[in-house]
Structure formats: C-alpha cells, structure tokens
C-alpha cells in the first residue's frame, strides 16, 4: 500500500484498502475558515442538531477577513465566534494568518493523520504526510462534527517524479505553475498524486508546500510527499504531541508515473482566465498591472519576502502600481521584522497588510474594476473572485511579482537580479 492507503486503512479500522473501496474513516482534524465555517455551522445547527463529538479536533481560522469592512462581514464573524464558543472548538480570530499556515504552525497537522477542510486547498497538508482533502459543508456538518468520521473512496495514485536544478531567477513556484499547465485543469481527476524524486527531496518544507498546493486545481483528491527527516524535524518545531508517520511500501504500485525535469525551466506566469493557462514570462512581458501581491495559501511565506527584497533592494515600487505584502502567519511577520525585510520593503513603497489570506476572493481587500489587473502568488485566477468578473489575475513567483511591481507591468525578474 502507499501512504494514503495505509492512512485510510488505519483510520477505518481495516487491515488493507485498495482503490475504489468506499471507507468510513476517523477524522483527526477539521479545518474551517470564516466563509465556509459560517456556512457549515448553519447546516450543523439547523439541519443536523447534534452535539459536537470532538471539539478539540475542529479548528476555525478567520483568514478572509482581518478587519471586516462591512456590517455583513462583521455579522459573519460574530456568528462564527458565537458558534466556536457554543461548541468549544479552536478559534483563531482575525490577524492570525492564512488558514493552512495557521493550522500547521499551531501543531494541528501531524504526519499520518486524516485532515479534512472546507477550503478546497486542504490537500496542501499532504506536505506534512497527511491524507488531506477538501470536503463539502454537508460532510463536515453531517458526519465529521457529530461523529468524527467521513466517507472516502480510495483514490488511484499517480507518481509525479521530479528532477533537475533551477536556473537562476527560477523558483519552485515557477515549477509548480508550469506543472499545473502540463498536467492541466482536470488532468488528474479523482487521483492521488505522490510527489517524489531528487528535486522534491532537496527542497525545504515551505517550498515542498507549493506542490500539494496545486493538486485540487488538477482535479485530484489529494497530493502528498512521503514524510522524511526534514518533514519530521519541521513538525517537531511546531508540536510536542506524538504522531505516527507513515510511508508507503517499497513495492507500492502506481497507476502511472509522470516524470519532469526542471533544469531548462524559465519563469512562468499563469494568465487569465483559469489556472491551466500557463505561459513563459517572455510571452506576457509588458502586460499592464495595477496591483501586485505576495499572499495566499502558497504565498506570504518568509521565502517570498526574501525573494521580493532581492528585487526591491535599491529600487522602488512603480508609481502606477501598488504592492501588497500579506504574511501567511504572525510567525512569518516576526521573522520578516528580524531580517529587516519589513523596513526594506516598506521603504521601497510596498504596503504590509495583516496576516490573513489577503486578496483571496476579495472579502477584505483585493477587489478590482473591469479595467484592472493583479499579479500575485495566489492559488487561483478564476473570474468572479476579485471584484468585476472582467478583472484580470496573473499568478507568478515572488520574484516575478516583485519585478512587475517595480516595472508597473509584467516583467522578467532576471533583468533586476545582479547575477545577470
């Protein structure tokens, strides 16, 4: 069995499971954010009407709001706080950071466990060695909250074996964006993707994070990286709780093996209107942008701010562009302060925002007119997520986002890096 099969077998009390089996498994952690937490809470209290069985396993994180701009938003948060108090679940209020980063950094995500969430990017926790997937409100309200369980069909697994070393100016996010274009939206429907190979092994935890991040938009159910010493060392920095990490059998079978090498990769930009529309940066250089942003599920890491600082040092944000910096957690902001990045990027004309999920869906920031465009590290660029459905969202690495903020239009970061 592979890692996912072993975790699902253990969680459903079986010796073994195989693809297409339907199992009812114990859930170790349920993640909710302020939007779908609200919708889930209403189903739980109005339609299910049972006690919360394991409140300690349920975590609600306000990340789409950091300070509600409307009474409607304030009411949603008020209801969510009351819901959290009534049922005794964990609550992280405004200003803590992005839902997935907060969950990991507070030790709720441990290797070998089953993690579900109302956010569709929940598979990102496969980075920690979990079986992690996004479910809908009715699964959370109907079976996870009252019984601590959920139903799952065991997916087929595809091995994604990655090799190569990047050229200067190219980052793991370029690799992840490019991979999204190669596999394609819906190119791995219902599959489980095991990311492996020398490329993955040499990455640090927060760069590995960018790969399970993409699987939902490929249509996959989950993605993961088998936990190794790096994973376990990271997890020990965020929790003292015990865990039982799982790795697949050496003779595990895959439905297919896909291999890619990143040695010749150029910086990539995902263009509107969907995440599969990935181009090399030179095809879109000069496209106008009014906004640039580091933030979101995969962005707002300390690595992103360090990359931006390489571009912004000695330069300024273009007068016609606005550059939003959104730390993914309070810990990242503290680190950015210590490293002098807060001052450097602030003085360069960028604007720091509270730890949150930033312009993701424009609840607290990030609405655009039909004529505006943003380039960001966010996960998605679908129309209708940032104000007017004709507004454009481009996705790129922190280097390309920062270079575009300096140029006031999409730019190749290599023109600003000294080594070129």
């Amino acid at each position, binding site marked *: 069995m592979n890692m996912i099969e072993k975790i699902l077998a253990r969680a459903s009390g079986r010796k073994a499971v195989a693809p297409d089996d*339907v199992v*009812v498994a114990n859930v170790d952690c349920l993640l909710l954010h302020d*939007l*779908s937490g*609200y*919708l889930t809470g209403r*189903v739980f209290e109005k*339609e*299910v009407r049972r006690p919360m069985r394991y409140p300690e396993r349920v975590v609600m994180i306000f990340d789409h709001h950091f300070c509600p701009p409307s009474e*409607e938003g304030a009411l*949603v948060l008020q209801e969510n706080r009351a819901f959290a108090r009534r049922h005794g679940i964990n609550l992280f209020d405004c200003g803590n950071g992005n839902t997935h980063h907060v969950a990991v950094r507070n030790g709720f995500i441990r290797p070998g466990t089953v993690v579900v969430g*109302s*956010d*569709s990017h*929940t598979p990102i926790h496969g980075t920690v060695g979990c079986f992690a997937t*996004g*479910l*809908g*409100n*009715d*699964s959370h*309200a*109907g*079976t996870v909250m*009252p*019984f601590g*369980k959920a*139903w799952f*069909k065991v997916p087929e697994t595809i091995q994604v074996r990655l090799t190569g070393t990047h050229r200067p100016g190219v980052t793991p996010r370029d690799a992840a964006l490019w991979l999204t274009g190669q596999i394609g*939206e*819906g190119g791995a*429907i*219902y599959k489980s993707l095991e990311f492996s190979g020398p490329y993955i092994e040499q990455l640090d935890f927060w760069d590995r994070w960018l790969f399970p991040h993409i699987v*939902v*938009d490929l*249509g*996959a*159910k989950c993605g993961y990286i088998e936990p190794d010493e790096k994973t376990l060392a990271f997890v020990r920095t965020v929790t003292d709780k015990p865990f039982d990490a799982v790795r697949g059998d050496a003779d595990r079978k895959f439905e297919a093996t896909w291999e890619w090498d990143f040695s010749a990769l150029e910086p990539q930009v995902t263009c509107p209107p*969907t995440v*599969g529309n990935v181009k090399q940066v030179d095809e879109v250089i000069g496209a106008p942008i009014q906004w640039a942003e580091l933030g979101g599920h995969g962005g707002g890491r300390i690595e992103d701010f360090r990359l931006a600082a390489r571009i912004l040092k000695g330069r300024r944000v273009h007068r016609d562009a606005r550059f939003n910096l959104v730390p993914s957690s309070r810990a990242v902001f503290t680190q950015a302060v210590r490293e002098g990045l807060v001052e450097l990027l602030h003085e360069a004309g960028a604007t720091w925002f509270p730890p949150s999920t930033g312009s993701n*869906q*424009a*609840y607290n920031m990030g609405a655009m007119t039909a004529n505006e465009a943003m380039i960001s590290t966010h996960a*998605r660029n*679908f*129309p*209708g*997520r940032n*104000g007017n*459905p004709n507004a454009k969202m481009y996705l790129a690495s922190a280097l390309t986002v920062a270079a575009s903020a300096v140029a006031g239009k999409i730019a190749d970061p290599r023109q600003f890096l000294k080594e070129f």
Partner: protein
Amino acid sequence: MQARGRCWKFGDNIPTDMIVRTDMIFKPWPEILKHVLETCNPEFPANVKPGDIVVTGKHFGQSSGRAIAAKAMKQTKIGCIVAEGFARTFYRNGFEIGLPILECPGITEHVSDGDVLSVDVESGKIVNETTGYELQAKPTPPFLLDMLKAGGLIPMAERLAGERS
C-alpha cells in the same frame, strides 16, 4: 428518478466562482438565484425553468469545495446536471445535498441549447427527444445512488457512521 426538460448547455472547466460569485455567498437565496451562472449565460438565471436539464463540459464545478454552488443549482429546481465530467468536490456535494448529477462523456456533442432531454438518473439512459439520439451515462456507484434516494448525506449520516443499523 426521472428528469425531463429543456437543455442549457455550458462549456468546460466552469468554476464554482462562476456558478455563485464569491461576493454573493452570504446573500439570501432569491438574490443568489438572480445571478447563478450569469457570467456564462445571462439568460440562464432569468429563464431557467423547473425540470430543465443543465449539460456541461469537462470538470464542472472546479475551484471552491463549498456546497453553495451545488445548492444554488438545486435551488433553481433543475431536473439534473449531465456533464462530460465534474470536479470531485462538486460531484461529492451533488450527492450529499440530493442533486441528481450524471457523468456522460460525449454528451456535449449530441445536444444543443433548447433541445428537450429525458434522463433516467438511476440507469443513466439519456434521450435527446429533439433529435432522437440516445446516450448512456457512466454508472453511478450504488453507494451514491442510495445517498440520492435518502435525500442526501445528512438523512443517512447516523447509518453511515455506524451508529444506527
């Protein structure tokens, strides 16, 4: 479970954000229903009738896993959705909230907007009454048909969790 109605046809990869725009998710249903799928076809929210059948391309309902997109489709009182394929969260949510949905590769080639379709949700037999063309959808797993017959996940949750036989 039978459905019969006019066909509304949509393309590939339609995200939940285009089914229900993100700035709509806390609005009351009548307000949401005025805008369902309007970015794809402004006629749809204005003129969809109970029993109509929505036909879509590949990977329908990608993006957010919020059930609100599936719930909004159910609230329009359509008879069912037949897609070349669904995003897995939309597929799961469809059954969990009791919205009949079928996967039928090839469907978009054989139907046009306004054709009258009849669909047997259990057997998967689809007839385009306007052209006479017949198609067979992929079989729905029995577990999910049971869920649909129960009216969704919540009515069967106790049984599923093993707390009631």
